């Protein structure tokens, strides 16, 4: 276990290093941050002077060296727009994004398992066919279109749901701003969660269904039937448990991807989270914020994958985390 952690940590450091180089080197191609900072009629000489002050005219290695030196002390630069340390800005937006991902995950987990299992057991029933049909539609509609459609029906036409934002939030003692404890905040969470879930839900239903069907064909399930076990025990204990292994792997990777999808969902719903922040930062050429975001998201990927590997070990004891001894 400890060996596994050390190995993972070393991997994580390499990954973060590579991300930092890549994100730092693309920043020159994102545009000129000065353009967003000054008005249209400011002279070129004036701009050059500001660029000098910001250190943007230094050679790449000098800039990168300065960045790494500061980054090792936990300083990922100061956002041009927010005028605050980029990491603080991102961490302040993290709760909003995590709550959105949490809402979507809740929808995915509570719906995908029963629906996937049901349609695997009764592949010919009309209900399974409807579910499969909907999942095809869901997977092929882009998430922003789903989002706009939801706003149109539930906010404008029916007027049931708020159309944008996070609503009323409460500050928890440890600095986590949450919308989960107010009715208004929860109402604001519904539509964004549904649209974020709309892409992943069909994927998981199909994955669980396919895996389950395969498991149901296996020798040990047939043996269990022959043994006369209760069908509930066969489906939910023997079959489902083995179905979940690949689902967990895919799920772990997809949670990372979901962070990426939040960019679209958050932008449409004006959800004040990290994804929205990132898109804005790109529009404003707020390079310190862009670099910091990429590093934070990279870290989230590394962490979720590590957790997935750990869970994997728990579900399936035959997996040896630290490799063969």
């Amino acid at each position, binding site marked *: 276990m400890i060996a596994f952690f050390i190995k993972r940590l070393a991997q994580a450091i390499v990954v973060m290093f590579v991300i930092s180089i890549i994100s730092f080197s693309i920043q020159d191609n994102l545009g000129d941050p000065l*353009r967003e900072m000054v008005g249209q009629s400011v*002279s070129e000489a004036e701009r050059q002077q500001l660029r000098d002050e910001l250190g943007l005219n230094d050679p790449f290695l000098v800039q990168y060296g300065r960045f790494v030196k500061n980054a090792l002390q936990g300083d990922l630069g100061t956002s041009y727009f927010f005028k605050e340390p980029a990491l603080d800005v991102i961490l302040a937006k993290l709760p909003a994004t995590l709550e959105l991902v949490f809402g979507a995950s809740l929808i995915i987990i509570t719906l995908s398992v029963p629906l996937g299992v049901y349609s695997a057991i009764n592949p010919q029933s009309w209900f399974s066919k409807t579910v499969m049909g909907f999942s095809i539609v869901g997977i092929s509609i882009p998430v922003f279109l789903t989002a706009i459609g939801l706003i149109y029906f539930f*906010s404008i036409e029916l007027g049931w749901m708020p159309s944008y934002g996070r609503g009323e939030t409460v500050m928890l003692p440890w600095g986590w701003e949450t919308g989960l404890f107010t009715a208004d905040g929860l109402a604001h969470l519904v539509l964004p969660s549904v649209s974020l879930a709309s892409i992943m839900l069909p994927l998981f239903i199909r994955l669980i269904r396919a895996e389950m069907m395969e498991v149901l064909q296996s020798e040990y399930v047939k043996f269990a039937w022959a043994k006369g076990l209760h069908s509930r025990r066969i489906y939910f204990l023997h079959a489902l448990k083995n179905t979940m292994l690949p689902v967990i792997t895919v799920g772990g990777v997809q949670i990372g991807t979901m962070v990426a999808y939040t960019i679209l969902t958050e932008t449409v719903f*004006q959800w004040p989270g990290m994804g*929205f922040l990132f898109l804005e930062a790109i*529009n404003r050429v707020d390079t310190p914020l862009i670099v910091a975001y990429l590093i934070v998201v990279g870290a989230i990927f590394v962490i979720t994958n590590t957790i997935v590997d750990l869970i994997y070990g728990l579900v399936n004891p035959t997996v040896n985390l630290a490799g063969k001894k």
Partner: protein
Amino acid sequence: MNKTLSMLAGAALSLGLAAGVNAATLKMAYDADPVSLDPHEQLSGGTMQLSHMTFDPLVRWDKDLGFEPRLAEKWERIDDLTMRFYLRKGVTFHSGNPFTAKDVAFTFERLRQSPDFKGIFAPFSELKVIDDYTIELKTKKPFPLVLNNVTYLFPMDSEFYSGTDANGEPKDKLVKHGNSFASRQLSGTGPYTVAERQQGVRVEFERFGNYWDENSPGNVDEIILTPIKEAPTRVAALLSGDVDFIAPVPPTDHRRIEGNDKVNLITMSGTRIITFQMNQERVEAFKDARVRQAVAYAINQEGIVKKIMRGFATPAAQMSPEGYLGHNSALKPRYDLKKARELMKEAGYEDGFTISMMAPNNRYVNDEKIAQAVASMLAKINIKVDLKTMPKAQYWGEFDERAADMMMIGWHADTEDSNNFFEFLTACPDADTGLGQYNSGNYCNPEADKLMVEANTETDPQKRAEIMQTIEQMLYDDAAFIPLHWQNLAWAARKGVNVEPVLNVMNFPYMGDLVIEE
């Protein structure tokens, strides 16, 4: 337990009281929120909108582009170089400090340090304080635009901004990219104070109790500004009743809003001109005036406005919009394909040539589609266009490098004056004077340049108008650039929110005067 109860009772009581006073709250959504609370950090629409809510200028534009006295009650010209302003008495800042001439002097000096605003205040040589309520502005040369430029002078509370902050930095320090005192708090004389601000999420404004303008009809006690970047979401928020007022409204949604009986759409012909410039240094053919004219004849401005802008723009044949001194009403769009082909033939380019074109895709309304339309119009006179569009963040770098043969640029004159267009877009490029900074076509007409200089010192409006209209005519005859249209402006509000009287063509609504009818 008892304490909790009494607190609850107190809260209930204050809620009841608040409801009794009939407090009007306005929830509004713009596409962006102000970058900073420092009014001198960036010269942009967002800053101007904020300044008009929390500060007051010496004079401001009225709806017909005339001047309305604000913190300056009246003014008079003393001589060719001097204008005297009499300041309003009994005005207090949000901090409680009284407003006097020293605040104006303080603000004037600070403006001259600001990279963004120093250009506007460059023609002035000094600000002289005569007494507490009288100042004189002196210019280096006779200068016709004193009042235009003074609309940018929003007196700041000199006492509030003096001393040092917690980091030991002077409070009035102007920082472009850092955490300064002035970028986080403000004290002006305006109708609203900033009660709370979460950058990029919301700004809450509260009516300033000691606001000097007691004649202002405004009855809005609280304004909550939420930036909503995505246009469809912004429109949805209005239609679902989550906000009361939005801007801008994209052309695609106009019909939907007009068809809804709970909201009003207000549009206005704008002053931002969209143009294409033809680079004479990169393309030999563009040196020939006939080829440029051919291009001008080949572009169907009315078609673009009708088909792409859905009528939400005014076709242009010059840069100055109506209402500007330089607007030459004789100039009309000249779409004539036959004439264009003839001119190409005359110039010896019957078989055409290939050029590159660049345009932004998120800067102006429908910019990418406009560029595509222009490209296909040019194909009809055998000019093959290799079009590349990109986000504005990348585009401006390319523009500075003059990276394509034809480039799109839109312009709004900060001074609301025609000469600003000429100086930035068509004057012979000169790195030392900064003239022609955005003239990517390298068009150069010394005669027109001479007239621009003349217009800069001519204080008789009649004569100035003549000079600037002559310049427009010269640029038109020479086809110095391709004007397309002036972008219109659009706002939408819930019925009962009477925004129309406070809107203006500069797009800084005077929110202090806004009335909400119940």
